[in-house]
């Protein structure tokens, strides 16, 4: 098939914004009237080398990426353009594929955390949490209450840092370059706290099966209070710089529109699904950790456009701060990890006193602990949507199979549908508002 096929031209003219087809049907299209450009590299090259191209046909195949400043790493888009209008597009991924799911089969459950934390590098604690929850499901252990609350505190702070990063990159992609520095500045404040607690700014390996790696450091309350005092006025500044600003609104409102039927059909989750007005948040609808014990609102949009997705993330930072405030009041005392000598290493002092403790310590760090046979799926609401880990154990100390349901990977599918019949300049706004983290897309 070539792009100048008369049949193809007819079909794509019939498609697009003008028709009254139900949203879910629109995204199910397979042929050339679909928003998705289903062309392989070979077919693409063939079209490019075809000397018999119709001179009147103004369609151009254009590559955007993989190293384009607005593609957040290594996302490549194959665009079929007519003038400046995007007709069909295809996200090409895999440039960052490092076989992390295969690697997970070689690592013990204790080492697994170091692997999964590198997937979504903007919100590493969520992947660690999903991995730990799935492992704990297989082990059948219950973590102490304090560990649960520490996990919740760290995850909500991570949601804030991840959304602050989005504010920064979204601002830069759309020309508010100073926003890049502001967002980064606030995120750094949160990361500074992470460094104090976990030892690292990113890739923490802090949430582990059985609890967390270490208790909160002395004076952590003051640090969190400092963050809670620091960030709200900064968010007000964002409102002045972006939210209410006419140029910003013009740039985002009505751009990249998706309705709820389409979002559901495309398996989209997180802010993309919520921007269509569909209130679905795992923290509220399938509460894990202790989310049923805290008060917060699920933020939804109403138009499903880029502006809604921006506003949802901005307000989710505020909601996360609300949750963090409640956690400060309610943080229970107790142990930060389960005292099960088969799963967590014994306290340092015990090693000097007891031979058995020394053996357990040695065993855990050399061959790891054995996890009962079975399969389990655990999911959490990451800043990008449902993040799930599917584990299959064959009774040994390494997972037989670990699969990560990366929300970014699945949300990337919405891009062609958001971009269809829009301008290429709006494409930049759309990529930014889908907020894919390529480490997680490619794994």
């Amino acid at each position: 098939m070539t792009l100048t096929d008369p049949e193809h031209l007819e079909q794509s003219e019939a498609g697009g914004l003008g028709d009254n087809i139900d949203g879910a049907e629109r995204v199910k299209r397979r042929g050339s009237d679909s928003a998705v450009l289903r062309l392989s590299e070979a077919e693409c090259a063939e079209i490019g080398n075809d000397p018999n191209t119709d001179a009147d046909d103004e369609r151009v195949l254009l590559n955007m990426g993989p190293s384009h400043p607005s593609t957040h790493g290594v996302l490549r888009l194959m665009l079929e353009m007519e003038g400046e209008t995007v007709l069909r597009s295809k996200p090409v991924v895999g440039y960052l594929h490092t076989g992390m799911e295969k690697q997970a089969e070689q690592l013990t459950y204790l080492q697994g955390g170091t692997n999964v934390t590198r997937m979504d590098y903007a919100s590493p604690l969520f992947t660690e949490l999903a991995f730990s929850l799935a492992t704990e499901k297989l082990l059948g252990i219950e973590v102490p209450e304090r560990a649960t609350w520490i996990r919740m505190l760290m995850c909500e702070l991570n949601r804030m840092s991840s959304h602050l990063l989005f504010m920064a990159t979204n601002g830069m992609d759309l020309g508010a370059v100073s926003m890049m520095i502001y967002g980064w500045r606030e995120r750094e404040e949160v990361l500074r706290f992470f460094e104090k607690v976990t030892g690292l700014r990113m890739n923490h390996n802090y949430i582990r099966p059985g609890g967390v790696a270490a208790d909160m450091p002395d004076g952590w309350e003051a640090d969190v209070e400092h963050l809670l005092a620091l960030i709200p006025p900064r968010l007000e500044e964002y409102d002045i710089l972006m939210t209410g600003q006419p140029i910003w609104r013009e740039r985002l409102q009505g751009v990249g529109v998706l309705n709820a039927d389409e979002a559901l059909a495309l398996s989209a989750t997180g802010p993309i699904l919520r921007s269509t007005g569909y209130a679905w948040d795992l923290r509220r609808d399938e509460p894990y950790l202790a989310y049923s014990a805290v008060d917060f609102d699920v933020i939804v949009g109403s138009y499903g456009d880029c502006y809604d997705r921006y506003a949802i993330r901005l307000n989710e930072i505020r909601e996360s701060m609300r949750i963090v405030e409640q956690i400060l009041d309610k943080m229970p005392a107790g142990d930060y990890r389960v005292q099960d000598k088969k799963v967590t290493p014994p306290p340092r002092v015990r090693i000097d006193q007891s031979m058995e403790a020394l053996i357990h310590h040695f065993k855990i760090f050399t061959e790891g602990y054995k996890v009962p046979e079975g399969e389990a799926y655990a999911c959490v609401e990451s800043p990008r949507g449902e993040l799930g880990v599917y584990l299959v154990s064959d009774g040994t100390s390494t997972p037989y199979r670990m699969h990560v349901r990366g929300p970014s990977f699945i949300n990337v599918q919405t891009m062609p549908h958001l971009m269809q019949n829009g301008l290429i300049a709006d494409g930049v706004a759309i990529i930014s508002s889908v907020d894919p983290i390529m480490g997680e897309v490619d794994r």
Partner: protein
Amino acid sequence: MSDEIAAEAADDVAEAAAIATLRYDAIVADSNGDVILHATSDTYLDTITAAHADGFDQLIDLTAVDYLTYAGKRSLPEGIEAGRFELVTALINHQRRERIRIRVQLDGDEPTIATAFDLYPGAEYLEREVYDMFGIVFSDHPDMSRVLMPENWVGHPLRKDYAVGSIPVQFKAASNQR
């Protein structure tokens, strides 16, 4: 507190399983509190069609497992014959807040199964990933091509008979006499 929640969850699972047996032509099992439907490659499409009609409005996940070197004893219900590959499809019903997982046994070097694309277009990339990593072909899929590996790659990396590769590291200061 947790006992109550666990008991409630167990009730929910039992109830959901009873409903599912009636509604879908599949064997229902329980795995760590989740509802599992065991379908065959022939009945897979019927099962997800029935689930879709029943309000399971989103395909949340789709993956596969290669059981070639599995050391343990797999727990499969009676009437289900173990295959080398297992396709795992997770669906969610937002109204009833229910989840089901459909597991299908597949055999052969290039197993084929129907695509879920026409019901759940979100399966497109997930099925491409399974094809890429396991070599399971989804018939009638709109774009059955690799997604993460390069187009001209040979082999399917997540298969158990696909070895983990390594590249020797050459250190600058290291002597060559070894």
